């Protein structure tokens, strides 16, 4: 069995998540080769073959050309699986490659289940096992689901890739993340507000609980998108990654993108009216309650 692993490269660097692809290929028991649109100086530490295309020519983001380059590598390598991260790069490119080759794609794989792949669904509340019906398949893996067992090492045998053409989507540039007015990374306690708090007017109650713990206010994304709390407080893949001594999730369901930002916290308390909320999977204590009265009761006791 052979797997072609599509590395990620951003802002002049190979992303470490590329090594998770390797960990997944090992779990599959597949031989691997990698493809990288990057540069030789930033090649992965890896003893196998790397198909390399120069980022100076093809750009960091050019979906049409990157697709062509990956297809060129597929033609040479003839892999059973073409594997991406389930990331802004991977979920953008994988369906393009799969459609061109008319292959099954299985998205955001978290595990292997017999001859199928385990994926999350229903906002992480449930799981599905998906089985490709095509002989080969495109896979995207959930970030953090497969961790390398050992330090990456080795130097690859590089084969160059080249394709002609331009591509219809023009990359103009990156916009950096907004300046942070607070650094959640330093807080010992973070109390985060989720959509379950109900309305903007309830934010001060959660903020008061955070203060009563001597901590900072965090938030899930919908609360930030709705303008209830500033983006600098957002925890998750598109916000900050935190690992405080205590993380209190108030009315947060526990979607994977939120969990990715806080599951390494030392101690996690979740307050949720839904006993089955997926946040329960990572919580040390799940308090099944209506969040607002509970937050007030807890704050009152802490202030005593």
């Amino acid at each position, binding site marked *: 069995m052979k797997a072609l692993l599509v590395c990620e490269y*951003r802002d002049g660097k190979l992303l470490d998540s590329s090594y998770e692809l390797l960990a997944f290929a090992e779990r599959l028991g597949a031989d691997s080769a990698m493809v990288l649109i990057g540069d030789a100086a930033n090649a992965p530490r890896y003893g196998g073959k790397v198909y390399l295309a120069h980022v100076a020519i093809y750009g960091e983001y050019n979906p049409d050309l990157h697709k062509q380059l990956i297809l060129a590598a597929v033609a040479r390598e003839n892999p059973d699986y073409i594997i991406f991260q389930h*990331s*802004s790069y991977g*979920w*953008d490119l994988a*369906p*393009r490659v799969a*459609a061109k080759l008319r*292959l*099954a*794609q299985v*998205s*955001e794989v978290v595990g292997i*289940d017999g001859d*199928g792949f385990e*994926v999350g*669904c*229903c*906002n992480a*509340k*449930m799981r*599905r*096992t*998906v*089985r*490709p*019906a*095509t002989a080969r398949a495109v896979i995207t893996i959930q970030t953090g689901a497969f961790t390398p067992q050992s330090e990456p090492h080795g130097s690859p045998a590089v084969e160059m890739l080249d394709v002609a053409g331009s591509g219809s*989507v023009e990359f*103009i540039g*990156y*916009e*950096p*993340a907004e300046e942070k007015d607070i650094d959640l990374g330093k807080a010992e306690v973070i109390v985060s507000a989720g959509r379950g708090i109900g309305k903007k007017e309830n934010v001060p109650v959660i903020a008061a609980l955070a203060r009563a713990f*001597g*901590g900072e206010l965090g938030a899930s*994304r*919908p609360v930030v*998108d*709705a303008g209830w709390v500033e983006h600098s407080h957002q925890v998750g*893949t*598109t916000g900050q990654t935190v690992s405080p001594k*205590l993380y209190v999730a108030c009315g947060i*369901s526990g979607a994977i993108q939120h969990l990715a930002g806080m599951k390494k916290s030392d*101690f996690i*308390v979740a307050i949720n009216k*839904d006993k*089955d909320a997926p946040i329960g*999977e*990572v*919580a*040390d*204590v*799940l*308090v099944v*309650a209506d969040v607002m*009265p*509970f937050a007030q009761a*807890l704050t009152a*006791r802490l202030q005593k």
Partner: protein
Amino acid sequence: MKLLVCIKQVPDMESRFKVNDGGDWFADADLAYRMNEYDEYAVEQAVRLKEQLGDTADVTVLCIGPDRVVEAIKKALAMGCDRGVHVPDAAVHLKDPWQVASAIAAFAQGKGFDLIFTGMQSQDRGSAQVGVTVAELLGYSCASTVVGFDYGAGAVTARRELEGGVKAVVRMPLPALATCQLGLNEPRYPTLPNIMKAKKKEIVTVPMGELLKEEPVATTTRFYPPAKKGGGVVLEGDVGDLADRLLGILKEKTTVLR
């Protein structure tokens, strides 16, 4: 300009999901359905573009699914879409993303849509494939995970959301497809007058059999709750009592109250 928005109807994610008899999806009974959250941003963006362009723009909203999905189409019409297309399919949950995308592409083929909006993913299946695949099948340029959208001078400038709050700004010519991400805009609530107006808007029915010629390339073999990792304590009861018990645990297990 002709715009197409593709929407899906999904269960409220706060529902309790029960496994169906086939063991391959959730049981339909007792679920409350709503428009997929990501698609609300797609509808809103299409309607905003129509408002920007004036009467020269026409927005079609398409939804595949059982009869109940007409409710989602009606909501999109009340938000400002001009016409609805319902592709009835009681077994849409058994179709894979490839089939759904193929059916949408078959519908759009030859109709001259300049711009197509979809959600970046559905809340229930979450494959994040259909939008990009539709673009690929139609040969449209495509930007996924869009959190900023601007149209002018025949081109779209989009902000794609990357990890850690970084965005990538991209420009693409028409015809194009954008998959919409949370926070792209603030979806409007349909007003009562607009709900009334929407009742007069046309919803045409197109049979799935006319659109879908593809076999599935992947199948769901099992649907199940995640294995409980265990270890976590679940506290239930009266609020004051819960607060006391939680503080007891925090004093014992953490150092934050010392």
